[in-house]
């Protein structure tokens, strides 16, 4: 943006800070829900931008840059931070002011970063975040002295308190009103080792002169960690957390899902009553409302998954999970840092693959990308839920464990197990000669999550899901409805009209290929749109089985399946979806992320092969066991 008129010019702020400095909380507090999440062109680094208006009415654009300890640019997201700060990122306005967020309880690394940022010549404002926690712990900071020593204005802030945020807005105004001439040198060079040491010594000197540390460190974190990071108890706790998470996804979401499904059912019935029978009514009721409804029903589950992930992240638990899993995953050739991307992949492989940007090493990153789609993403939940509730009795085993939940848990374990095995194979065949990248991760002090910040995070994710439902999924549902409805059955034809449609032709064409898996032509048809988005397979099955009505559809698909499929087919179908060739958007992200079509094709083929073999084995065994 290069407006010449000063009064209407937008003011560009960039947030920089170390990981865990509370940057995102502050970003959320400043911008509220006025934020846009997208990607930087050419790379899958999340670009989070927001806007706010200062007390003087100035329009401010705020960019939340990826957290970093230095301007070294070791990973793609750290490169983004460096390039934006230096004003070298094409298509991104150079920031007028860099807000450097420092965790007031943990200044050592950030002060060095601040000194490094100062060298870029970009105007800086240091925000001492979590000042309240620091004070409570007995850390006292001479803010004015620190400001003088750094040669940069320093303010304190408490991201959750309105006053702190207001102060920040006011300071932005003051700064913008008398903006200094920016002297960003093109002569910026990465720091040498000796320069780094000099800066760290200077930072340590400033801390000695301006900060009084408490006599006692935060013992709570240490005490909690004694249990949470315990070699045995720690792993048990991690397993328990994951178990609770999946039980929650399955049981807590139920009432809300029923409410949604009832609403869509009512809407469908209303349409059926208002409109005359015919193509339009069928399109609206069976294609649009039933189709999109069958997918939207899963919004509560997606919200719960993201709620857990964001909460664990805010507590500071995610880094602990990476610590616990590092060696275990290392055995499978994975980096400890891969744990977080893989855990995000439980929600959706797309953010998971994007989160692999925290892995510096290219090969570690590629391995993680290749196996991320094996993690059970939330789009598989609809498929699992449907089949499980139709075929697995809702009994309790051992008195308290819900059998359906247990099967669900088992499916997740199967996904994880196969991902680890795949990683092992990839490493064994492709990169035998290579050493894994270093694992260095800060274990932040535990903190209570900020409710508002979590809420904004969940809201943003839910919005992304809804947008997807409104575009990809919607268009697929329309296509399925079209294929299942045309050409229409001739007058006086026997059997369901769908038998005469394009869908039936395609399905019957594919049937011989899928027959060894116990799949009939209806399943074969449903698998194709399942490529666009896995959850569409459910809606597609519904449409293909020509079941009318919304609420009835949700219950009745299950009933129809239970009466038409053998248990062996159902199990085979579940096995297929553990591996299911991932959705088109995942493939697109893989291509963009790896920068090559080759890896996209490799991923698709290996998952397709796995799915086929797994289903074949499952079906053969189940049939032999008399379940066919």
């Amino acid at each position, binding site marked *: 943006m290069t407006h010449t008129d000063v009064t209407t010019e937008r003011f560009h702020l960039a947030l920089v800070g170390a990981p865990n400095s509370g940057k995102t909380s502050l970003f959320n507090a400043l911008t509220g829900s006025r934020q846009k999440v997208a990607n930087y062109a050419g790379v899958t680094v999340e670009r989070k931008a927001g806007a706010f208006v200062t007390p003087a009415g100035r329009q401010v654009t705020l960019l939340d840059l990826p957290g970093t*300890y230095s301007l070294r640019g070791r990973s793609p997201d750290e490169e983004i931070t460096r390039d934006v700060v230096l004003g070298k990122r094409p298509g991104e306005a150079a920031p007028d002011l860099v807000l450097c967020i420092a965790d007031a309880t943990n200044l*050592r690394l950030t002060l060095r970063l601040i000194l490094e940022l100062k060298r870029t010549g970009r105007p800086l404002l240091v925000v001492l975040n979590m000042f309240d926690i620091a004070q409570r712990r007995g850390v006292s900071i001479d803010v004015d002295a620190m400001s003088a020593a750094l040669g940069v204005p320093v303010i304190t802030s408490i991201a959750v308190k309105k006053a702190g945020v207001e102060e920040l807005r006011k300071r932005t105004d003051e700064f913008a009103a008398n903006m200094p001439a920016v002297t960003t040198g093109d002569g910026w060079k990465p720091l040498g*080792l000796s320069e*780094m040491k000099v800066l760290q010594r200077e930072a340590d000197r400033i801390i000695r002169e301006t900060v009084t540390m408490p006599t006692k460190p935060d013992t709570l974190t240490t005490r909690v*960690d004694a249990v949470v990071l315990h070699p045995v108890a720690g792993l048990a706790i991690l397993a328990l957390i994951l178990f609770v998470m999946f039980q929650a996804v399955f049981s807590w979401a139920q009432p809300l899902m029923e409410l949604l499904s009832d609403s869509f059912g009512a809407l469908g019935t209303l349409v059926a009553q208002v409109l005359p029978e015919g193509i339009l009514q069928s399109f609206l009721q069976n294609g649009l409302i039933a189709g999109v409804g069958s997918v939207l029903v899963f919004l509560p589950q997606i919200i719960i998954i993201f709620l857990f992930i964001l909460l664990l992240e805010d507590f500071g638990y995610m880094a602990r999970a990476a610590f*616990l899993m590092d060696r275990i995953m290392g055995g499978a050739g994975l980096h*400890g840092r891969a744990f977080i991307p893989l855990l995000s992949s439980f929600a959706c492989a797309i953010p998971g693959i994007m989160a692999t940007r925290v892995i510096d090493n290219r090969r570690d990153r590629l391995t993680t990308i290749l196996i991320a789609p094996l993690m059970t993403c939330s789009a598989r939940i609809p498929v699992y839920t449907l089949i499980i509730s139709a075929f697995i009795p809702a009994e309790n085993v051992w008195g308290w464990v819900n059998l359906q939940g247990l099967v669900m848990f088992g499916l997740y374990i199967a996904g994880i197990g196969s991902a680890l095995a795949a990683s092992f194979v990839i490493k064994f065949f492709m990169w035998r000669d290579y050493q894994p990248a270093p*694992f*260095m991760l800060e274990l932040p002090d535990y903190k209570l999550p900020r409710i508002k910040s979590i809420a904004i995070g969940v809201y943003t994710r839910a919005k992304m899901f809804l947008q997807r439902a409104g575009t990809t999924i919607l268009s697929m549902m329309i296509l399925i409805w079209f294929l299942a409805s045309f050409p229409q059955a001739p007058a006086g034809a026997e059997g369901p009209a769908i038998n005469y449609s394009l869908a039936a032709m395609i399905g019957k064409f594919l049937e011989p290929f899928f027959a060894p898996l116990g799949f009939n032509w209806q399943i074969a048809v449903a698998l194709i749109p399942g490529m666009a988005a896995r959850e569409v397979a459910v809606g597609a099955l519904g449409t293909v089985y020509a079941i009318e009505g919304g609420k009835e559809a949700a219950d009745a698909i299950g009933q129809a399946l239970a009466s038409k499929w053998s248990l062996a087919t159902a199990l085979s179908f579940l096995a297929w979806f553990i591996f299911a060739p991932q959705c088109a958007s995942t493939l697109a992200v893989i291509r963009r992320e790896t920068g090559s079509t080759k890896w996209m094709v490799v991923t698709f083929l290996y998952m397709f092969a796995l799915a086929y073999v797994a289903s074949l084995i499952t079906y053969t065994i189940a049939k032999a066991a008399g379940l066919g």
Partner: protein
Amino acid sequence: MTVHQTASETSIHELRLGNAPRGFIGTIVALQPDIAGAAESGHELERHLLEMGFTEGARVEILHQGAIQRDPIAVRVDNITIAVRRREAMAVVVK
């Protein structure tokens, strides 16, 4: 403050953080990142360690260790906690 650190000074104390047991408390004497088997080249590893606060004179304490081969370790470096693998911690000379 300048830190004068010579090779002879470090060779006397050859204790490496990567070999230290859980509960070890000490001070960083030097970074000697040219270790066999590390994934990053010496300079890059040293830079990385510096970024995470492993500087000469810093107080270190091994708080926790993993289940498999006591790896990785959680190290208190001054007032923050860093998780690091023993392999990379071999670059840190402590006393």
